[in-house]
C-alpha cells in the first residue's frame, strides 16, 4: 500500500515535469509575442525593446524555463505579463469560481445519474428504462455550450429568476454568489449525467446477472435490498472510473461554460491568457490543471482500494 502510494507520487512529479517542458516548448514555437500584443499596432521598435526587457523576454528560452521552474519549486508562480500581478493572486481569485462550479457539477451529475442509472437497470426493458435511456441518449448528444445558452434564454431572459452571467463574488454573501453558479453547473452537469447514467445502468445490469446476486435472492433478500446491497456496490468501480475521467472533461468544459456565462474562473483565464500570449499564466495553468487531473486519477486509484479489497491485496503481494 505504502509502496503503491510512493510509486504513484513519483510518477505524478515526473508527469508534471514532462507537462511543463511540453507546454513551455509549444508556447515558444507558437507565433506571437506578448510585448507586441501589449503595444499593438502603434508600437515603435524602441518601446517594444524596452517592454521586452521589462518582461524579461530578452533572455534566452532555456534560461526563462529554468527561472520559471525554479520559481514553481519555491511556490512562486511568477508575474502575469498582461495583468502585472502575481499569477498566484490571479489563480487564488479564479479558483473561488471554478472549484465550487466543478464540485457542484460533479455532485449534481452523480446525484442525478446514479439513481437514474440504477432505476433503469432495475426496470430493464420496461417503459421507465426506455424513457430514461432515451433522455440520456439525447443528453449525450447535447453540447454543453448550447445547453448553457438555452438555460440563459429560459431562466434569465424569458423568466428572469437567475442572472444571465457574471459572478457576484463570495464577499457579497453565499446566495448572491451561489445563484450565479446554478445555471452553469446544470449546463456542465446534465450532459455528463447522461453519460454517467448509461454507464451506471450497464454496470448494474452486469452485476445483476452475477451468481452472488442470485444467491442473495435465494437467501431471501427482496429485489430492492439485493440491488442496493450487492449489485450496486459491485458496480461502482466502472462508475468511479468514469467520474474520474469526467473530471478532466469537466475542466475542459469550464473553459467553454465560463465563457458562455462570463464567469471569472480558471477556464476563462486560460482562454484569455492564450489569446493575450500571457505565456507565464498559460504555463502555470497548464501545469496546475495537469496536476489536478493526475491527482484525481490518483484519488480514483485509491478509491478502488476502498471499493475492492482484492486490489490492495494484490498490490501488497
Amino acid at each position, binding site marked *: 500500500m505504502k509502496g503503491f502510494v510512493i510509486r504513484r507520487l513519483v510518477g505524478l512529479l515526473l508527469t508534471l515535469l514532462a507537462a511543463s517542458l511540453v507546454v513551455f516548448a509549444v508556447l515558444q514555437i507558437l507565433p506571437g509575442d506578448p510585448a*507586441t500584443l501589449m503595444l499593438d*499596432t502603434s508600437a515603435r521598435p524602441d*518601446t517594444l525593446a524596452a517592454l521586452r526587457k521589462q518582461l524579461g523576454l530578452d533572455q534566452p528560452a532555456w534560461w526563462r524555463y529554468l527561472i520559471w521552474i525554479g520559481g514553481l519549486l519555491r511556490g512562486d508562480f511568477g508575474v502575469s505579463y498582461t495583468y*502585472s500581478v502575481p499569477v498566484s493572486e490571479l489563480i487564488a481569485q*479564479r479558483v473561488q469560481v471554478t472549484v465550487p462550479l466543478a464540485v457542484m457539477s460533479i455532485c449534481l451529475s452523480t446525484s442525478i445519474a446514479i439513481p437514474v442509472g440504477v432505476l433503469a437497470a432495475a426496470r430493464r426493458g420496461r417503459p421507465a428504462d426506455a424513457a430514461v435511456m432515451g433522455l440520456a441518449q439525447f443528453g449525450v448528444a447535447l453540447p454543453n455550450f448550447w445547453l448553457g445558452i438555452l438555460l440563459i434564454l429560459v431562466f434569465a431572459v424569458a423568466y428572469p*429568476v437567475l442572472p*444571465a*452571467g457574471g459572478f457576484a463574488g463570495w464577499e457579497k454573501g453565499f446566495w448572491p454568489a451561489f445563484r450565479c453558479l446554478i445555471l452553469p453547473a446544470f449546463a456542465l452537469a446534465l450532459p455528463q449525467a447522461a453519460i454517467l447514467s448509461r454507464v451506471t445502468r450497464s454496470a448494474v445490469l452486469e452485476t445483476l446477472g452475477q451468481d452472488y446476486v442470485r444467491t442473495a435472492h435465494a437467501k431471501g433478500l427482496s429485489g430492492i435490498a439485493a440491488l442496493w446491497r450487492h449489485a450496486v456496490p459491485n458496480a461502482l468501480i466502472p462508475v468511479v472510473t468514469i467520474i474520474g475521467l469526467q473530471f478532466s472533461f469537466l475542466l475542459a468544459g469550464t473553459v467553454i461554460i465560463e465563457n458562455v456565462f462570463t464567469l471569472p*474562473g480558471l477556464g476563462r483565464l486560460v482562454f484569455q491568457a492564450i489569446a493575450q500570449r500571457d505565456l507565464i499564466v498559460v504555463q502555470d495553468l497548464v501545469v496546475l490543471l495537469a496536476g489536478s487531473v493526475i491527482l484525481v486519477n490518483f484519488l480514483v486509484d485509491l478509491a478502488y482500494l476502498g471499493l475492492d479489497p482484492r486490489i490492495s491485496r494484490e498490490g501488497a503481494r
Partner: protein
Amino acid sequence: MNRILATLIATTLFAGTAQAAKDSIILGMPLEPPMLDPTAGAAAAIKEVTYANIFQGLTRINDKGEVASQLAKSWTISGDGLTYTFALQSGVKFHDGTPFDCAIVKFTYERAVAADSTNSQKGFFEPISSTACPDPLTAVITLKRPTGGFLFNMGSGDAVMMAPNSVANNKTNPVGTGPFVFKRWVKGDRVEMERNPAYWGPAPKIASATFRFIADPSAATAAVMAGDLDAYPLFPAPESLDRIRTDKRFSVVLGSTQGKTIMSINNERAPFNDVRVRRALAHAIDRDALLSALNGTGKPIGSHFVPGNPGYIDLTGAYPYDPAKALKLLAEAGVKPGTEMTIKLPPPAYARRGGEVIAAMLEQVGIKAKLVPVEWAQWLDQVFKQSDFDLTIIAHVEPNDLDIYARDKYYFNYKDASYRAIYQKWVETSDPAARIDLVGQLQRKLSEDEPNVFLFSLGKTGVWNAKLNGLWVNQPIFNNDLSGVFWSE
C-alpha cells in the same frame, strides 16, 4: 425548498425596486483591459474604462472629436508654433490627495519620452524639447519643431497626468484627477468606480459605475435583455439588433468611430507593387454590398480618413465598383486569370465574414483568393511585424493616423517621397485652414496611389436603457466618458 423559493422571489423583487431610484450604471464592454494604466499599453479597453473617468490630461477630446480644455484651462501658442504656455486649473487634487501642478506635467511628459518608457504612443511626446514651470500653475512646453497635432495628442489617453508617488501602482490601482475614483477590479469580471467627492469640476450625476466584460455576442445579448447591463456602448452582436429595437426598454444608437476598415496590400510584393493591380482590386470590390453583408453601420470610404473629421473629403467615387475595368487593369498589368492571392484574416467579423464576401467578388475578376484565418497574436507577428502577407483585412482605429503611410517601415510597405513631403508639411503646420488643405492633399494622394483598398468606416452601435442619457453617440477616441451621464425620470 420553500426557503430557496422565497429567497429567489425576494431577490428578484428587490432587484425590481432597486431600479426605481437609480444613480449607478453598469456598462458592458467586449474586452477586459489587461491593466488600468493608459500610458503603459495600447489596448483600447484601458482607455474605455479610465479615460476622462479616472485619468485626465491637459487637454481632452470631446464627443465631436475636437480639442477642449481639461486640466489646462487655457493656453497660448507662440508665433513660431514652438512654445505652448498652459494655464493650469487650480485646486486640482489626485484621488490620494496629491496636488496637481506643473511639476506633475513635467514628470508625466518626461516619463513618457524616457528611454525605458513603454508608452505605446511615445511618438506623441518625441517633439517635446523641454517642460518648464515658471510658477506652479503655468506649464511652458517647448517643442523641437512645430507640431500641428500637439494639442490633440496631449488630449489622448496616452498623455494623461500621473503623479510620481502613485505611478508605479497605476496598472492595478489607478490614481488620477478625474470625477471617478477607482474602487476595485474583479479580474475577469468587472471594474468598479465611485464618484470622487473631492472632484475639482462639476460633480458627476451618477454615484457609481461598473464596467463588465462580456465578449461572447450571445452572452452580451442575454445580459442586455435580462437587464443585467444598463448600457453596451460597443454592442458586439449586430444580428440581435432587430430583436432589441422592438423592445421599448432600450435605445439602439448608431454612431461612428475613427476605425478605417481597409484591405491592406503588401506594396513590396509583385504584382501588388504595380499601381494598376491595386486600382483593379479597388474597382473589384462593391463596398455597399460588403457593408450590407456585414450588417455594417459604417460608410464607404475612399481614403484613410473617416467622414465627420475636419478636412474629410469624399473620394469614394475614385474607384467605383466596376469588374470590367478591374479585369482590364489586371490584364494590362499582366496578371493572368486564375492568379492566386492569399488574404490573412484576423478574428473580427469584418475580417472573417468580410473576407468571404471579398473573395467572392475577386473571383468575378479572375482572382483566386485563398483565405487564411489567423488569430490576433499571429496577425501581429506575421503580418504586422514580418510583413509576410499578400492581402489582409484590418481596421485601423487610431484617429488621424496618416503618419503610418509616411513611416520608413510599416507593414504594408508604402514608400512615396511626395506623400512624405506633404505629410511633413502637415505635421509642422499649425494654422487650421492650411492644415485642412494639407489633410485634403494627403487623402487625395493616398486615393491616387491606392496603397491599400479603402473599404468603409467602422460604425458604432450602442445599446442602452432608454432612460439613460449622456453617453456618447460617436467614438472619436476610445472612451466611455461617464461625467455627463444621468438617468431621466
